[in-house]
């Protein structure tokens, strides 16, 4: 930096940007949603976050030490705290310690340092960590408890669970099982799969729903069976309200980021618009999908993903038109994965798939500029 430029920036706070400040602000934008999540799902949300941040910082420091970089300088940018926080928000409350350790290792080492640290990684580190956990521990990563306003904070079971998480003693108690519940999207997926296997029995999709029966996620469908409903959760139920209010909080955080200019509108708008369009196409093609439209956007991680995950600057393309395509790609893949894959939510894999395309998009879209 030219010294005089530095003086100029000092004199013009509006022009003063800084990586650490950006990361801190994104973290601030996560606060309302995280608080709301903790209120609905109990102290396990908070411990998840704190433990993951601690673990990731430790791994980061270790990696920096091994790579002979300045630990202070490396940790200072705050990017690892943000990644840990994002990963924590994807996980159900009070995930066992060993899962968190593996998630933190995957995020920090596999997601970031094997490529050379901040700015070099092609894949979103938090999503790398989440994908690893999703594949390795489907049961631990998809089992959500039934949301209860403030309930978790007064329930001895949750505290016991949190304690066992921290002490890393053995996992799920029977009392716990009773309160686990599928997210609205699990039900959406189950309903869709039932419908699609009924209508297109000859296609590969029926095989897929058969597979879902065998996979670890089956636990989830089992639970939805307990709920006794095949058509989704009532819009007025506590579960529905919890998930919708959470998405509203992410939306608020995202709008804050837009407002302060930390993200641009292209990517989230393209992603949400593409997801909506794809969903409409599916409702025409498969009328059995009964979840009404706005709720599809609000259930699950679509809004969270659009504002906080997909906008990760390192792994997104950088030209504006490329960002439009990239966002659209994530939106489409997200809904396609929701309908056809074994997982109820497709944001993580959609983001990772589009991460892989980002350099190509960047390369292609430079031609947009006048020569």
């Amino acid at each position, binding site marked *: 930096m*030219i*010294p*005089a430029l530095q003086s100029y920036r000092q004199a013009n706070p509006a*022009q003063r940007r800084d990586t650490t*400040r950006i990361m801190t602000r994104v973290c601030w934008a996560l606060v309302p949603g995280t608080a709301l999540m903790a209120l609905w799902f109990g102290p396990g949300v908070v411990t998840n976050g704190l433990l993951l941040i601690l673990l990731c910082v430790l791994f980061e420091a270790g990696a920096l030490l091994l790579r002979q970089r300045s630990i202070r300088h490396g940790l200072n940018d705050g990017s690892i705290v943000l990644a840990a926080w994002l990963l924590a928000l994807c996980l159900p409350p009070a995930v066992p310690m060993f899962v968190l350790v593996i998630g933190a290792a995957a995020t920090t080492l596999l997601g970031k340092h094997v490529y050379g640290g901040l700015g070099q990684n092609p894949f979103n580190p938090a999503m790398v960590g989440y994908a690893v956990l999703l594949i390795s521990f489907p049961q631990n990563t998809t089992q959500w408890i039934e949301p209860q306003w403030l309930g978790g904070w007064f329930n001895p079971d949750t505290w016991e669970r949190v304690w066992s998480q921290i002490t890393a003693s053995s996992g799920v108690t029977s009392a716990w099982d009773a309160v686990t519940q599928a997210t609205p999207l699990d039900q959406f997926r189950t309903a869709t799969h039932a419908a699609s296997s009924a209508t297109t029995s000859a296609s590969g999709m029926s095989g897929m729903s058969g597979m879902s029966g065998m996979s670890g996620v089956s636990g989830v469908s089992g639970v939805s069976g307990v709920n006794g409903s095949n058509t989704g959760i009532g819009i007025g139920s506590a579960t529905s309200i919890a998930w919708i209010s959470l998405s509203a909080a992410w939306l608020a955080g995202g709008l804050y980021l837009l407002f302060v200019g930390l993200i641009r509108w292209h990517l989230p708008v393209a992603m949400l618009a593409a997801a909506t369009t794809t969903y409409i196409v599916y409702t025409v093609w498969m009328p059995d999908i009964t979840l009404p439209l706005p709720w599809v956007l609000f259930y699950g991680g679509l809004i969270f993903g659009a504002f906080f995950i997909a906008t990760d600057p390192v792994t997104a393309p*950088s*030209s504006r038109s490329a960002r439009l395509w990239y966002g659209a790609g994530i939106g489409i893949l997200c809904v396609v994965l929701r309908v056809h894959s074994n997982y109820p939510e497709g944001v993580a894999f959609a983001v990772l798939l589009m991460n892989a395309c980002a350099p190509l998009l960047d390369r292609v879209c*430079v031609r947009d*500029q*006048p020569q």
Partner: protein
Amino acid sequence: MKGGLALSRPANSTIDDQIHTLPLQATYYLPAVSYSRAVLHSQYEPGQSVLRGESIAQGVIAPTSGTLRAQVNHAWPHPSHLEVPTWELEADGLDTALPLAPLAQNVTTQDKLSRLTMAGVQGLGGAGFSTAKKIERVLQHTERTLIINAVECEPGVECDRMLMQSHASSVIEACHALVEWIQPTQTLFAIEDDKQSAIDALTSDKTHQQNPVLTWVTLPAVYPSGAESLLVQRLTGLHLAPNQRAADAGVLCVNVGTVMAIYNALNGNAAIDRLISVSTQDLMHTTTLSVRFGTPLNAVLKFAASQHTGLAEALRLNPTAVQVGGPLSGFSRPIDNAPILAGCNALLIGPSHQSQPPSACIRCAECATVCPANLLPQELYTAARSDDHDVLKHYRLDACVLCGCCDVVCPAHIPLTQWFRFAKGSVAEQAQNEADAALARTRSEQHAARVEQRALEKAVADEQRRSAAAAAKHAKADIQAALARVKRKKPSA
């Protein structure tokens, strides 16, 4: 223009509304190289005396009368911080001017152009292009556009505004003279909207009102609207190919200070000085000086400090380093006796903030958002680091105007512009090497061809000689045979 930065001076900063002229110095330093470090040749000998306005070499004009000393390696105000061969001109204090008559109305274009060259008129934009060459190229076109560039949108650079404000009628006269000469289809006078005082001064001029040949184009004060390639593109819609200059497309874009220099040269005054804004680093005080080329930097700063207490204080706080150029486009150098040259429009003095250490690029693309040339600086940065010329070309390093906007917004504090300056140097060097190699190759091929040609010619000549000899031998043999026949016949006869 896309991108750019709306930069403003700090609130309640002061600008000295007067032009102060530096007194005559004892010694001036005149680099014997061009901006691109090509060595300039001269027939002047050490010890020879020169007059003010005498052309010592291409683009090098004696700023006063005095004696030339031998060339020495001397500090040079260039980002490379190199020392270059430099003439020392010892002033005799008389400041006698070379008598140059004003050119008559009816002289030929060639005369005018050679006058510009002789008077050392060059662009005041840094690279020091010869104005005569530029005009010559434009005159080859029948459709011409003249753009007078009075857009200096970098805070802390006030010299154009000061010139227009305090010499409005001369500026208008100079513009009219240039229009008369160039005969453009249209003349655009580009100026930013925050220079209302200058606009008022110019538009209220009588000559202008009687003959309004100038079309005013007011642009919002967004840095770097004044960069030539961007301004031309914006005003004419012309997209210049890499390495193409506006002049090649019939567009003459000249800075308003250069217009004055052209006018002065045609009227018998060589280009020996320019206006320079001197400010404190925080831009709280600015004053404008008229400085002759070749004046040592430290003398300029000392004089500036004597004009303003704010500047004196700033110099006292940081007596070792100065920023040459504006806050964004300039570069830092030690305060020494490096000479002031045509490209220097501003100096910033005083303590500078500790620069923050750069961290990794997070690909936020803020740099791309502000880049006025619509480039992707983050990609250029990666390519510059690996010195990959193909990738640099793909991302159009050639279109980068080194404005520094990307630096300002980069949250990772990466000195992007510095990298691009370096990369441009590296690309230019490679091009030069390739050109040299190509030249050497052609020469060696020509040499080989000549050798071959000579060998061939020799072979042909040899052959001819051999056949001639053979023919002669043959003929001799024939004669002998005939004689023998005759001899043989004789006895029988």
